[in-house]
Protein backbone atom coordinates (compact mmCIF):
# COMPACT_ATOMS: atom_id res chain seq x y z
CA UNK A 1 0.00 0.00 0.00
CA UNK A 2 1.55 3.29 -1.03
CA UNK A 3 1.24 6.61 0.74
CA UNK A 4 1.28 10.22 -0.37
CA UNK A 5 4.39 11.67 -1.97
CA UNK A 6 6.79 13.88 -0.05
CA UNK A 7 9.09 16.30 -1.79
CA UNK A 8 12.64 16.74 -0.50
CA UNK A 9 14.73 19.60 -1.87
CA UNK A 10 18.46 18.99 -1.49
CA UNK A 11 20.53 22.12 -2.04
CA UNK A 12 23.17 21.60 -4.75
CA UNK A 13 25.81 23.39 -2.71
CA UNK A 14 25.32 21.02 0.21
CA UNK A 15 24.33 17.61 -1.17
CA UNK A 16 26.02 15.55 -3.86
CA UNK A 17 23.88 14.59 -6.86
CA UNK A 18 25.72 11.28 -7.14
CA UNK A 19 24.97 10.55 -3.49
CA UNK A 20 21.28 11.06 -4.23
CA UNK A 21 21.43 8.73 -7.21
CA UNK A 22 23.10 6.04 -5.13
CA UNK A 23 20.69 6.50 -2.25
CA UNK A 24 17.70 6.20 -4.57
CA UNK A 25 19.02 2.88 -5.83
CA UNK A 26 19.58 1.55 -2.32
CA UNK A 27 16.16 2.65 -1.08
CA UNK A 28 14.15 1.58 -4.10
CA UNK A 29 12.76 -1.37 -2.16
CA UNK A 30 11.16 1.00 0.32
CA UNK A 31 9.85 3.88 -1.79
CA UNK A 32 9.00 5.05 -5.29
CA UNK A 33 11.11 7.94 -6.50
CA UNK A 34 10.75 10.75 -9.02
CA UNK A 35 13.78 12.94 -9.60
CA UNK A 36 13.94 16.45 -10.98
CA UNK A 37 16.08 19.54 -10.46
CA UNK A 38 15.92 23.29 -10.19
CA UNK A 39 18.72 25.84 -10.36
CA UNK A 40 19.47 25.44 -6.71
CA UNK A 41 18.13 22.06 -5.70
CA UNK A 42 18.07 18.36 -6.48
CA UNK A 43 14.38 17.54 -6.03
CA UNK A 44 13.34 14.08 -4.90
CA UNK A 45 9.70 13.17 -4.71
CA UNK A 46 9.42 10.01 -2.71
CA UNK A 47 6.39 7.86 -1.99
CA UNK A 48 7.05 5.33 0.79
CA UNK A 49 5.74 1.85 0.08
CA UNK A 50 4.89 1.12 3.72
CA UNK A 51 2.44 3.44 5.43
CA UNK A 52 3.36 2.70 9.08
CA UNK A 53 7.03 3.36 8.37
CA UNK A 54 6.57 6.33 6.04
CA UNK A 55 8.06 9.01 8.31
CA UNK A 56 10.98 6.75 9.14
CA UNK A 57 11.67 5.95 5.50
CA UNK A 58 11.71 9.63 4.57
CA UNK A 59 13.96 10.56 7.50
CA UNK A 60 16.39 7.69 7.05
CA UNK A 61 16.60 8.34 3.32
CA UNK A 62 17.58 11.95 4.01
CA UNK A 63 20.20 10.78 6.49
CA UNK A 64 21.50 8.26 3.99
CA UNK A 65 21.99 10.95 1.36
CA UNK A 66 23.82 13.13 3.86
CA UNK A 67 26.00 10.20 4.92
CA UNK A 68 26.94 9.40 1.33
CA UNK A 69 27.65 13.08 0.62
CA UNK A 70 29.99 13.23 3.61
CA UNK A 71 31.64 9.96 2.50
CA UNK A 72 32.46 11.68 -0.77
CA UNK A 73 34.03 14.61 1.04
CA UNK A 74 31.06 16.86 0.39
CA UNK A 75 30.11 18.74 -2.73
CA UNK A 76 33.11 19.25 -5.02
Amino acid at each position, binding site marked *: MTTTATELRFHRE*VYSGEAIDQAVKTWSNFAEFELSESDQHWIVKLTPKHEPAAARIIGEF*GNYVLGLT*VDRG*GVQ
Partner: protein
Amino acid sequence: MSEQSPISDIPEALVSAALTERSVSITLDAELYPLQAVYGASYVFLDRCYVFLDRPEPGRLRATLSAKQAVEEPEALRQLVGEFANELLSCAWRHQVTQDNRVAIETVTVQAIAGAMGEPSLDDLADFDFTDEALDDPLGIAQSWEEKHGRKTPAEAEGERGEEEASA
Protein backbone atom coordinates in the same frame (compact mmCIF):
# COMPACT_ATOMS: atom_id res chain seq x y z
CA MET B 1 4.43 23.21 9.86
CA SER B 2 3.65 24.19 13.44
CA GLU B 3 4.64 27.56 14.79
CA GLN B 4 8.28 27.88 15.66
CA SER B 5 9.42 29.00 19.09
CA PRO B 6 12.69 30.85 19.27
CA ILE B 7 15.30 29.66 21.75
CA SER B 8 16.99 32.19 23.96
CA ASP B 9 20.58 31.89 25.16
CA ILE B 10 21.84 30.13 22.08
CA PRO B 11 25.62 29.83 21.89
CA GLU B 12 27.48 32.72 20.35
CA ALA B 13 27.90 32.74 16.56
CA LEU B 14 24.85 30.64 15.89
CA VAL B 15 22.62 33.09 14.12
CA SER B 16 19.31 31.71 15.35
CA ALA B 17 17.57 28.58 16.52
CA ALA B 18 13.92 27.67 16.60
CA LEU B 19 12.03 24.63 17.70
CA THR B 20 8.79 22.89 16.85
CA GLU B 21 7.25 19.90 18.54
CA ARG B 22 9.75 17.45 17.22
CA SER B 23 12.55 19.36 15.58
CA VAL B 24 15.02 22.14 16.02
CA SER B 25 16.41 24.34 13.24
CA ILE B 26 19.73 26.03 13.69
CA THR B 27 20.94 28.76 11.36
CA LEU B 28 24.68 29.31 11.13
CA ASP B 29 27.04 31.89 9.79
CA ALA B 30 28.79 29.95 7.00
CA GLU B 31 31.90 32.12 7.34
CA LEU B 32 32.46 31.03 10.92
CA TYR B 33 31.46 27.42 10.37
CA PRO B 34 32.78 26.04 7.09
CA LEU B 35 30.68 23.41 5.38
CA GLN B 36 33.17 20.67 6.30
CA ALA B 37 32.64 21.42 9.99
CA VAL B 38 28.86 21.37 9.50
CA TYR B 39 29.10 18.03 7.73
CA GLY B 40 31.20 16.64 10.57
CA ALA B 41 28.85 17.85 13.27
CA SER B 42 25.73 16.70 11.41
CA TYR B 43 27.21 13.26 10.88
CA VAL B 44 27.55 12.77 14.61
CA PHE B 45 23.78 13.11 15.05
CA LEU B 46 22.68 10.70 12.32
CA ASP B 47 21.98 7.88 14.75
CA ARG B 48 19.73 9.97 17.01
CA CYS B 49 18.14 12.45 14.64
CA TYR B 50 17.02 12.99 11.11
CA VAL B 51 19.35 15.71 9.91
CA PHE B 52 18.58 18.01 7.02
CA LEU B 53 20.91 20.74 5.77
CA ASP B 54 19.95 23.70 3.67
CA ARG B 55 21.35 27.01 2.46
CA PRO B 56 18.51 29.53 3.04
CA GLU B 57 20.58 32.42 1.67
CA PRO B 58 24.20 33.08 0.71
CA GLY B 59 26.44 33.11 3.75
CA ARG B 60 24.04 31.07 5.86
CA LEU B 61 23.56 27.36 6.49
CA ARG B 62 20.63 25.78 8.27
CA ALA B 63 20.62 22.42 10.04
CA THR B 64 17.29 20.90 11.05
CA LEU B 65 17.46 18.09 13.58
CA SER B 66 14.33 16.00 14.12
CA ALA B 67 14.34 13.50 16.96
CA LYS B 68 13.90 9.88 15.88
CA GLN B 69 12.26 8.80 19.10
CA ALA B 70 9.17 10.50 20.49
CA VAL B 71 10.23 13.60 22.37
CA GLU B 72 8.72 13.77 25.88
CA GLU B 73 10.31 17.03 26.96
CA PRO B 74 10.89 20.16 24.87
CA GLU B 75 14.05 20.55 26.96
CA ALA B 76 15.54 17.57 25.12
CA LEU B 77 15.37 19.46 21.85
CA ARG B 78 16.84 22.61 23.40
CA GLN B 79 19.71 20.51 24.65
CA LEU B 80 20.33 19.39 21.11
CA VAL B 81 21.15 22.98 20.15
CA GLY B 82 23.90 23.13 22.76
CA GLU B 83 25.22 19.74 21.76
CA PHE B 84 25.21 20.67 18.12
CA ALA B 85 27.06 23.92 18.83
CA ASN B 86 29.64 21.98 20.83
CA GLU B 87 30.09 19.50 18.04
CA LEU B 88 30.38 22.26 15.44
CA LEU B 89 33.15 23.90 17.40
CA SER B 90 34.84 20.55 17.85
CA CYS B 91 34.76 19.87 14.10
CA ALA B 92 35.98 23.34 13.22
CA TRP B 93 38.85 22.97 15.70
CA ARG B 94 39.75 19.51 14.44
CA HIS B 95 39.73 20.80 10.90
CA GLN B 96 42.18 23.54 11.85
CA VAL B 97 44.46 21.17 13.78
CA THR B 98 44.54 18.83 10.78
CA GLN B 99 45.40 21.70 8.43
CA ASP B 100 48.17 22.85 10.79
CA ASN B 101 49.70 19.38 10.82
CA ARG B 102 48.97 18.25 7.31
CA VAL B 103 52.59 18.12 6.15
CA ALA B 104 53.66 16.12 9.20
CA ILE B 105 50.78 13.67 8.73
CA GLU B 106 51.64 13.09 5.10
CA THR B 107 55.36 12.78 5.76
CA VAL B 108 54.87 10.24 8.54
CA THR B 109 52.43 8.20 6.49
CA VAL B 110 54.54 8.12 3.35
CA GLN B 111 57.63 7.10 5.30
CA ALA B 112 55.80 4.35 7.13
CA ILE B 113 53.80 2.67 4.42
CA ALA B 114 54.67 0.68 1.35
CA GLY B 115 52.60 -1.56 -0.91
CA ALA B 116 51.52 -5.18 -0.39
CA MET B 117 51.20 -6.57 -3.89
CA GLY B 118 54.81 -7.45 -4.36
CA GLU B 119 56.82 -6.72 -7.49
CA PRO B 120 55.05 -6.93 -10.86
CA SER B 121 55.80 -10.05 -12.83
CA LEU B 122 57.15 -10.02 -16.41
CA ASP B 123 53.65 -10.92 -17.62
CA ASP B 124 52.20 -7.90 -15.74
CA LEU B 125 54.77 -5.62 -17.35
CA ALA B 126 54.06 -7.13 -20.78
CA ASP B 127 50.34 -6.39 -20.30
CA PHE B 128 50.87 -2.83 -19.09
CA ASP B 129 49.87 -0.08 -21.52
CA PHE B 130 52.81 2.31 -21.45
CA THR B 131 51.07 4.65 -23.90
CA ASP B 132 48.54 5.54 -21.18
CA GLU B 133 48.98 8.85 -19.40
CA ALA B 134 50.46 7.69 -16.12
CA LEU B 135 50.53 10.91 -14.15
CA ASP B 136 48.52 13.94 -13.35
CA ASP B 137 51.00 16.64 -14.20
CA PRO B 138 49.43 20.01 -13.31
CA LEU B 139 52.72 21.89 -13.46
CA GLY B 140 53.74 20.31 -16.75
CA ILE B 141 56.93 19.00 -15.21
CA ALA B 142 56.87 15.84 -17.31
CA GLN B 143 56.33 17.84 -20.49
CA SER B 144 59.21 18.66 -22.73
CA TRP B 145 59.94 22.35 -23.27
CA GLU B 146 58.65 22.02 -26.84
CA GLU B 147 55.31 20.54 -25.79
CA LYS B 148 54.78 23.25 -23.23
CA HIS B 149 55.55 26.14 -25.53
CA GLY B 150 54.18 24.77 -28.79
CA ARG B 151 57.60 24.67 -30.37
CA LYS B 152 58.91 21.84 -32.51
CA THR B 153 61.41 19.35 -31.17
CA PRO B 154 64.75 19.29 -33.01
CA ALA B 155 63.70 16.01 -34.66
CA GLU B 156 60.41 17.51 -35.87
CA ALA B 157 62.17 20.63 -37.13
CA GLU B 158 64.73 18.44 -38.92
CA GLY B 159 61.94 16.43 -40.53
CA GLU B 160 60.15 19.55 -41.73
CA ARG B 161 63.33 21.00 -43.23
CA GLY B 162 63.82 17.73 -45.10
CA GLU B 163 60.25 17.89 -46.52
CA GLU B 164 60.71 21.54 -47.58
CA GLU B 165 63.93 20.72 -49.37
CA ALA B 166 62.32 17.73 -51.08
CA SER B 167 59.38 19.80 -52.34
CA ALA B 168 61.53 22.75 -53.43
